[in-house]
Structure formats: C-alpha cells, structure tokens
C-alpha cells in the first residue's frame, strides 16, 4: 500500500530526527522578575481574566480570552501607555488543536517595554477589529485575513491585500500546497476562454526558458535567432553547441612557473 500522507500539514518536514531528540526550551521568567511588567500585569488582572503570563526574551507574553481583545488593547493603550501596535498576526494550529493563535505585538515608548498579547480562536470564530484603536491594524488585519482566513468583525474595508482579489485559499495555512497542482495549470485557460477551450489551447507552460520551434511570433529558435514573425521552415540551420577551445575544454596538466603571471593589482 502507498504510504498515507495526511493532508492537514503539507509543509516541509525534517527528513531525519534522532529518536532520542528532546527539544530544549527558550527559558521563561515569571512576570514578578520585572517590576514594570509586574505592575502592568497586576493592573490588567484587576479588570480582565488573564489565562497565562510570563516573560520570554525580555518581553512579557499575556494570554487573554479572545472576546476581550478590543477592551484589553484599549486598556493597554490608554491606561498602560502602550502607544504603538507594532505587529499583529496569526499562527496556524488547526492540525493540532483546530485553533488559530492571534498575537498583538505592542510597544510602550516611555516604558521602553514590549508586550505580546495572545489568544486562541476556533477556526470559524471571528475576532473584533482593533482598527479604531490603532489605524495600523487596518492593514494588518487585512493581511491576516488574506493569509489565514481569520475573520475580523467591524473592519472598515475587509478585502484581500497581498493576493489578488479573486484568489481562493489562504496561503499561510499549513494545508496550503507548496506547488501548483494539476488544476493550477488550467486556471487561466478556464477563466478566460472556458473549459471547452482546453483542447485547443493546452495547459499553461511554466518553463520560462522554453523555446518553441513552431512559435513564429518570437525571435528565438534553437541555437540561433530570426526576425520576429519569420516563418518556420524545415531547413533551419543546425547549430551544434561549440566550445571556445578546439580540442575540448582547456586543462592545465602541469603548471610551469615561468609561463604564469602574478597579478599584483586585482583592480588592474
């Protein structure tokens, strides 16, 4: 039987992992080890439920409920002076737990601290847009939708941003194929001319360096060039590939010192 390949994660996999391999962890510190973060977290915990919090690589990571995201970010912006939303995106955990992880990376300039606010949402669960708090979220949320298909409520202009507007699928999901499949080569033919034209036109050719002998519109023929539109004839010149050297490639059998030159100045 052919080996079964699960389709929920088609990303590249390491071809060998030692059977005794145990991955080490990036160390986590308790939030109490930093007084500024500890004060921020205490203020946050009074108002909202905090699922988990720790410090990793000098930045505080806070897990909250996804329903609170707007209010928590508002609290961070207005009460705790985290005045910039540097980044916002998702991580695909659909294969493992059927969830997306959303993170908001925030910066406080007067505290010189960075905080990452994280939450888990189900695949079809929508989150609230934070565009009213940070205009930068306008484009970030569009990108997040474009790449993962995470739905965002109350966004002013939810449209794909990087991929074409009629694109199907979400490229950064782990299930998204890494190469075009057999349907991809028919995409443009089907779209422009219809499926019935497949026999006439043929699949899309993806080799950009390909030379078609019967293409009379281009100037390239195998081994020589012709003017544009030159007709294809059977008596095309045969141009065998030639090397510059007459008797094959020049090889040095034995280097004679007196016949070689040492170049002092590499710039010459």
């Amino acid at each position, binding site marked *: 039987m052919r080996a079964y390949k699960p389709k929920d994660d088609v*990303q*590249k996999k*390491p*071809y*060998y992992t030692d059977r005794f*391999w145990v*991955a*080490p*962890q*990036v160390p*986590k510190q308790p939030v109490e080890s930093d007084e500024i973060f500890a004060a921020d977290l205490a203020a946050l915990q009074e108002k909202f439920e905090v699922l988990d919090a720790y410090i*990793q*690589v000098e*930045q505080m*990571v806070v897990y909250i409920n996804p329903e609170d995201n707007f209010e928590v970010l508002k609290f961070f912006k207005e009460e705790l002076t985290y*005045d*910039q*939303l*540097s*980044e916002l*995106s998702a*991580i*695909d955990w659909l294969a493992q737990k059927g969830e997306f992880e959303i*993170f908001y*990376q925030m*910066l406080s*300039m007067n505290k*010189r601290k*960075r905080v*990452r606010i994280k939450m888990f949402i189900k695949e079809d669960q929508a989150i609230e847009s934070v565009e009213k708090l*940070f*205009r*930068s979220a*306008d*484009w970030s949320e569009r990108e997040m939708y474009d*790449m993962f298909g995470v739905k965002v409520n109350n966004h002013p202009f939810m449209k*794909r*941003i*990087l*991929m*074409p507007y*009629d694109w199907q699928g979400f*490229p*950064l999901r782990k299930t*998204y194929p*890494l190469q075009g499949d057999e349907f991809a080569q028919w995409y443009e033919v089907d*779209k*422009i*001319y*219809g499926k019935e034209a497949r026999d006439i036109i043929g699949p899309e050719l993806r080799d950009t360096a390909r030379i078609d002998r019967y293409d009379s519109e281009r100037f390239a023929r195998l081994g020589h060039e012709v003017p544009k539109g030159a007709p294809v004839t059977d008596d095309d010149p045969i141009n065998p590939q030639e090397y510059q050297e007459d008797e094959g490639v020049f090889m040095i059998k034995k280097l004679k010192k007196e016949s070689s030159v040492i170049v002092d100045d590499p710039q010459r």
Partner: protein
Amino acid sequence: MAQQPNRLRPFFENITYDRDDNELVLNFGPQHPSAHGQLRLMLHLQQEQIVKAHPDIGYLHRGMEKMAENMIYNEFMPTTDRMDYIASSSNNYGFALAVEKLIGLEVPRRAKVIRMMLLEINRLMSHLFWLATTALDIGAMTVFLYAFREREYLMDIMEGYCGARLTHAAIRIGGVPLDIQPEFLDQLKTFLDKLPKNIKDYEDLLDENRIWRMRMEGVGIIPKEMALSWGCTGPMLRASGVAWDIRKEEPYELYDEVEFNVPWSDKCDNFARYRIYMEEMRESAKILYQCIDMYEKCERDGQTELMAHAPKYISAPKLDIMTQNYSLMQHFVLVTQGMRPPVGEVYVATESPKGELGYYINSQGGPYPYRLKLRAPSFWHTGILTDLLPGHYIPDVVSIIGTTNIVFGEVDR
C-alpha cells in the same frame, strides 16, 4: 460609464472612472516611475485635489513568510536580502539577531564591530539612494547624479567585502563569515572624510532651492498621533515629533558604546523628513569613525574570533572542519539538516534605515521555523497614504511617496 465585462476581462476592475458627481478616479501605477516599485494608487479626485486614496499593494508578493517555514534557518538568510534590497545587510542582521536571541548566543566583539560597520554603510547607502530618487522625482537631476556617485563608492566597498553590491548576505547567524579586507578601513576613511563636504553640496543644491522648498514645506503633514497610530517608525516617526530610535532606546550590538545623536523634528512635513535623512547621514558617519577605532582596538587586543562558538548551532571554523573529524560531522549535520533552535518565540526589532524592522519567530524545536512574521516598516508607511493623501494635490503625491521612503520588496515581502 460602467465597463462591460467579457470573457477576456471577466470582472476586471469594477470601477467607474468617469462619474456623474464630477469625481474622477485616477489610476496611479503600478508601473509609475515615482511609485518606487510596484505601488498602485486609486485616487479619487475633485479637480486636482485628492478626496480619497486607496493604495493597492501585492504586485511584488513572493510569500517570504511561507518560504521561511520551508527553509532551514541558514537557507533563509539570502532570502531576507530581497526584502529591503536597498540596504540588504540590515535585513540579514535583523534575522540573524532574532535567531541569536532565540538560541541565546553571544557574538564575538570583532564580529559585532564589523556588523555595525556594515549596518551603518547600508544606512548611508539607503539614505543616499532615498535622496537621489526623491530629488529626481521632484525634478532635481543633479542631486541624483551626485548622490549616486557616492553610493557607488559605498557599493564598491561592500563588493570588496562580500562580493555583492545589492544582495549582500554578508551576515551569518552567530557572527560574520569574513574579516574585512585590508583596504576596507582606508577606503572607508577616504569616503567618510569627503562625506561632510558631499552632504554640504546636496544641501546647497536643495535647502534654499525654491522649487524644492515649495514641494516639501507644509506638504504631507503627519501629526504625532497619526504617526503613532499608523505604526510609523524610523525617520517617519522622528519627523513627527517622537525622538525614538531603537539603536538608542533598546541598544543592540555595541550601539550603547558609541556616541551619536538622534535627529528629530516637530514640523511633521516632508521637509522635516528630508532634514532628518541628511542629519542621519552625518550621525552614521560619526558612528563609522568610532567603529573604525573599535576595530583597530580589537586588532591590537588580538580578538580574532568572527563566529560564536556553539557547536550545536554554528559550524566550526573552516580550519577545524578540514582537520577535525567531529567538527566535520557537526558541519555536515548543520548543513544537511539545519540547526534546531529551542522551543519558544521571539520578537526582535532593529532600526533599519526605513524604520523598525522586526522578526517574530515561533520555533517548535524543528529545523524549520513554525511561523516567521516579518514586520517591515514600509508596509505601514504605505498604509498611511490612505489617510495622508486626501486633501493634497496631484503633484504632492509624488513628493509624499518620495519622503515615505517605501521599498516594495519590503511592503509585499
């Protein structure tokens, strides 16, 4: 007059270009020479004034985040070059620093000094390129020629170091691959000695230039709140009255050991941004002079290490690989399988010439990052055009796009 869809253009651009309410829709780009790459702007015009702007990006999207998830860490390094291709070492550096923070590496001092020199050279190259192209967009051809002459000199220095002029890949995770070439310091000093005079030349051409000032002063005003809300960083933020430079505030490498100022302005307009770019070039030169001294001190102290020593993650020096069995085995595993950083995540921000360049890496202990998010400053500097352009006139669009200094390799990634 609505477009008629047909099979060749199925529902292409459902836009009415000429409308009854006297509003004209102008399609700017994606091949416009002053769009600095592949920016497409849909501008709604009342007469010559813009009432609505809608930037459309994605024409250079290559899916770098997806590529990163399917590459070992060292493999991804040359790909980062293709983000901000005007200053590619700063992209390399941001990625290398993020991975080093993830695995907790300390880089040898000599490598740090070399990295700082490369970063500042890249900043100068980027700012000179910015000045040249923006001046050309405004119509000042001479500045373009002068600034490109100086940039050419810097590119030659970079070529001497790493063999490439644009896509350097000059920095490795754990250090730098090479020591600088013997003539590097002399060439750099020659350049730096001339630089103040060159900057003075540009300023003489532009500062009191009537056209330049009319196109720049009071145009493209970004208030402080708007800059913060839109995630502006770098010169865009500093021109809006926030003196925030990551090199100063969250110093990495040896930036806490060098003396430099952070130029900022509260004028918030195009001219303020232009002044900041010019002053930053002077500050970069100041840093480079100090780096030269630091490098010479490393030389005197005999600090010759260029790569960190971490056999689990970094290959041994070439000499060890060629002579010692265990180093060769390690090297083989690291090249074929790749390093496996610990499980965890990291967000590292560095001050690239354009602004805050951040790398978020989520590692699950495998040789490929589970998720890598590239935080490119130009992405938001393009987004802000939505709010910034309305109210301006058509010629202002060109000067505003110029001073935002967006590079599309970085916007689309």
